[in-house]
């Protein structure tokens, strides 16, 4: 079996499980929406200030909901030694990495598709025409988050207090993604196009490619029975 078909098989398993239980997706949805309310109450922004704060607030929401998803990413495998069984099967570990990454990516993108328009409604923003560009930037940032997040979730799998440890080691590494997405979105919101933010977009793309490749290569060592 090729890497891609193995990935697809594993991803299908995860999606099927999620469709039956809806643990992660529902909690992430709810948490993301909840954060928007919390932000609204804690900042109580005047309308002209909202656009300035939008990228930062949105990304804070995505970081927190994403971490919530990552913490549950290997839950199904932790039960009943499923991980050992999975590792015993003749699968490429790279496929496991790709499947887990894309699974978390799908969850996060679904959450973002709801949370971003909701943000525009709740904060009375008018710039609906900029959403496609903002989605593109958010997507690239989310890929980077999921790639690195999956690796970090895997190495903290057997740690004590792993839910607490995960953001501690993940967030400092995520700084290029956080800065790049927020600067890109700021630029789009201010000027209506990516324009000056192109170097940032390249940085995002570079980050995604570097760590995606690295993940496929080293996941063998990351996850061990």
């Amino acid at each position, binding site marked *: 079996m090729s890497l891609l078909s193995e990935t697809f098989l594993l991803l299908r398993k995860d999606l099927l499980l999620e469709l039956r239980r809806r643990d992660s997706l529902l909690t992430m949805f709810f948490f993301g929406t909840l954060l928007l309310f919390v932000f609204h109450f804690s900042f109580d922004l005047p309308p002209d200030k909202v656009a300035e704060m939008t990228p930062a607030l949105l990304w804070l929401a995505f970081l927190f909901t994403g971490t919530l998803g990552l913490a549950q990413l290997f839950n199904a495998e932790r039960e009943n030694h499923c991980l050992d069984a999975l590792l015993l099967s003749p699968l490429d570990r790279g496929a496991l990495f790709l499947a887990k990454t894309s699974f978390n990516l799908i969850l996060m993108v679904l959450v973002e598709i709801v949370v971003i328009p909701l943000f525009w409604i709740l904060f009375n923003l008018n710039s609906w025409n900029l959403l496609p560009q903002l989605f593109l930037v958010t997507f690239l940032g989310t890929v980077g988050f999921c790639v690195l997040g999956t690796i*970090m979730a895997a190495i*903290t799998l057997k740690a004590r207090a792993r839910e607490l*440890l995960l953001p501690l*080691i993940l967030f400092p*590494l995520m*700084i290029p993604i956080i800065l790049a997405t927020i600067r890109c979105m700021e630029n789009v919101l201010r000027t209506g196009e990516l324009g000056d933010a192109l170097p940032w977009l390249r*940085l995002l793309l570079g980050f995604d490619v570097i760590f995606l490749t690295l993940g496929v290569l*080293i996941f063998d*060592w990351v996850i061990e029975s």
Partner: protein
Amino acid sequence: MAQAAKPIRKSRGVLGALALTAIAIGLYWGLVIAPPDAYQGEVQRIMYLHLPSILTAYLSYFLVFVGSGMYLWKREKRDDILAHSAAEIGVLFTALTIIAGSIWGRPTWGVWWTWDARLTLTAILLLIYTGYLMLRSLIEDESRAASAAAVLGIIGFLDIPLIHMSVYWWRTLHQPPSILQPNKPPWENVHPSMLTALAISFAGFLLLYFYLLSLRYRLGEMREKIKARRLERGV
């Protein structure tokens, strides 16, 4: 084995003595012989500690990267001990750099901390490698902790250029080149005895670094031996 350990211990002692001497000479040169800075005055002398300590910290993180890579490749315990030791000392030197920098920044810039690119990068390094040490301490299984830490040691090091780029752009796209002055060739605007003091200090810090590293490495080895003995006796 005790006979073999003796010369090593002796050479370690020599290394420590050399480090102490070089740092003492460097301090004397920096504090007494070198002239005070034309603009910053006496407080600039902190540089003789600040610069060597950040350079040794970077050396440390490079050694963490090398040790981590070697461990994943060869699975030898000594590479893991090297990476762990280097990370601990690296965190120590990064923290020292930030503390010394703050003490210098307060009279020079008027603030203890500012979000300059270089400062931010150093703070992020401290966070990453503190996370590395926490990861190690929170995983019970030794070999699992070693490979998890090795993965983080590699990823963390590869992330440094990206973080470096992003914080520099963040600062330059936002505000004009800030408080830290652009580097001119050192021989044009730096007094030669300042450079000498800096060089001696740097040599001293390097020696001190390798002295500490060898001590910490020995400690890791001894822990392994004790564990092996316990296993033998079935305790």
